[in-house]
């Protein structure tokens, strides 16, 4: 074990590709579900109707108060008893439900941060609350949500590794399996780390670019 041989890295590097692709897929589908749930629950959470607030509060409370690994196992084994579900969609759903709670809070914060004068201006033009939300508040709120969302996406990408617990064939699972079969765990974990670092770096760069671009369109005084 103390005889690490990093020269094997190039040899195994490409074999990680399909597993990295699985990581990407689980993350992307999980985030898509999370974004939809997040927006929905954020709107419920902010609704003037108190009855709608409670389910949103309960959801956010339950998800933020329990570990993702538990949620993943809960959903996979829980769902299996009701419907036939494969481990990959189960992982996407679990990641989606988990991220939904955090994304709901991100959206809630960014919606609330839009000055209430914006709503009043919309109202005074004769817009209904729904139109104001769609045309005035959300476009501004989404811009403000970009930095925290970027951060959440990176967390989700790393968290997708927990899907290995229900043996979804993603990066970490492959690294561990290959590592134990070849007795080269450190080397294989290093390869996985390189993949993760590459992907999170790409996400960071994209998020920074988007942020910059939105800033320009909102505040063109630099031109």
């Amino acid at each position, binding site marked *: 074990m103390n005889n690490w041989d990093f020269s094997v890295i190039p040899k195994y590097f490409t074999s990680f590709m399909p597993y990295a692709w699985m990581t990407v897929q689980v993350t992307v589908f999980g985030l898509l579900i999370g974004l939809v749930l997040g927006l929905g629950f954020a709107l419920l959470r902010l609704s003037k109707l108190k009855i709608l607030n409670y389910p949103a509060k309960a959801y956010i409370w339950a998800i933020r108060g329990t570990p993702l690994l538990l949620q993943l196992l809960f959903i996979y084994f829980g769902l299996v008893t009701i419907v036939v579900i494969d481990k990959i969609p189960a992982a996407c759903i679990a990641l989606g439900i988990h991220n939904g709670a955090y994304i709901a809070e991100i959206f809630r914060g960014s919606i609330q941060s839009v*000055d209430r*004068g*914006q709503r*009043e*201006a919309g*109202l*005074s*033009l*004769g*817009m*209904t609350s729904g*139109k104001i939300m769609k*045309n*005035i508040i959300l*476009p*501004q709120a989404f*811009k403000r949500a970009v930095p925290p969302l970027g951060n959440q996406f990176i967390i989700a990408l790393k968290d997708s590794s927990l899907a290995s617990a229900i043996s979804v064939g993603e990066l970490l699972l492959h690294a561990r399996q290959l590592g134990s079969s070849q007795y080269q765990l450190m080397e294989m974990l290093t390869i996985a780390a390189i993949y993760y670092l590459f992907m999170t770096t790409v996400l960071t760069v994209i998020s920074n670019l988007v942020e910059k671009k939105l800033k320009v*369109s*909102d*505040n*063109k*005084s630099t031109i």
Partner: protein
Amino acid sequence: MVEINDKYIEKKGATGSKTKEEPAPKNIVVANSIEESSEGIDIADRLKEEKILEADIEKKGDDLEIPIMIQIKNLSKWYGKHKVLKNINLSVKTGEVVVVIGASGSGKSTMLRCINFLEKAQKGIISIDGKEISVKSKKLHLIRQEVGMVFQHFNLFPHRTIMGNVIEGLVKVKGMSSHEAIERGKKMLDKVGMLEKADTYPSMISGGQQQRVAIARALAMEPKVMLFDEPTSALDPELVGDVLLVMKKLAKEGMTMIVVTHEMGFAREVADRVIFVDEGEVIEEGAPNIIFDNAQNPRTKEFLSKIL
């Protein structure tokens, strides 16, 4: 696509230097005043003068025939236990310009915001253009289309261009095609001297310019009344004049206006009536020269002595 409009600049001086016409006949020109483009102004001005002459002849004291645009009866509003409006009664005739003055916290904004139902009063009756409106109505958004509002902090939409701001209501509320809306938007921006900036964003223009765009945005909806809540108090002193000029022009065109302001010069020149509000009550009202030079109520006198 933006035509530079120096005509406006010439006009500005011209309009500004004119003295105010008699307030009474304003209602007569109210109908098409909003549609004027800069080219239309000369004609419109001429028409207006003719009509004013006619009106002067007809006038002879039959003020009663001017329809009432806003009628407020026994309006009371509480925030929790705090009663901020106490039995307000006010009626504003079509074409009338009413200036509301009063100390900070006296309830001026609240009163104004009750008129377009941004705040809902617990007691009293509000009628707009003869129709009594219940605060419980599900169609308040339709009422608000007819009542334009200009805010102290402009509240332009930062994610929309200047033109985008002006056409937002036209497209999203009135369902106008964007082509048609832009045509109207150009007229409105021209009217406030902001057509040049149609394609820029609110953050790129000065506060005074933003406020003029906000006025254009409200006017585009062709409201029956315009409410102004301290439209110049967030502006640097040198930017106040342009906004007041636009408001004066609007008043001359016959727009019904309720203006909360500390600009006493504007009140003197433009208002048909000045209303002094104190602790949620209308304490005194009258023509500007009467209120400013000959107030009866000691509280009015005290307030004016501080501000004048």
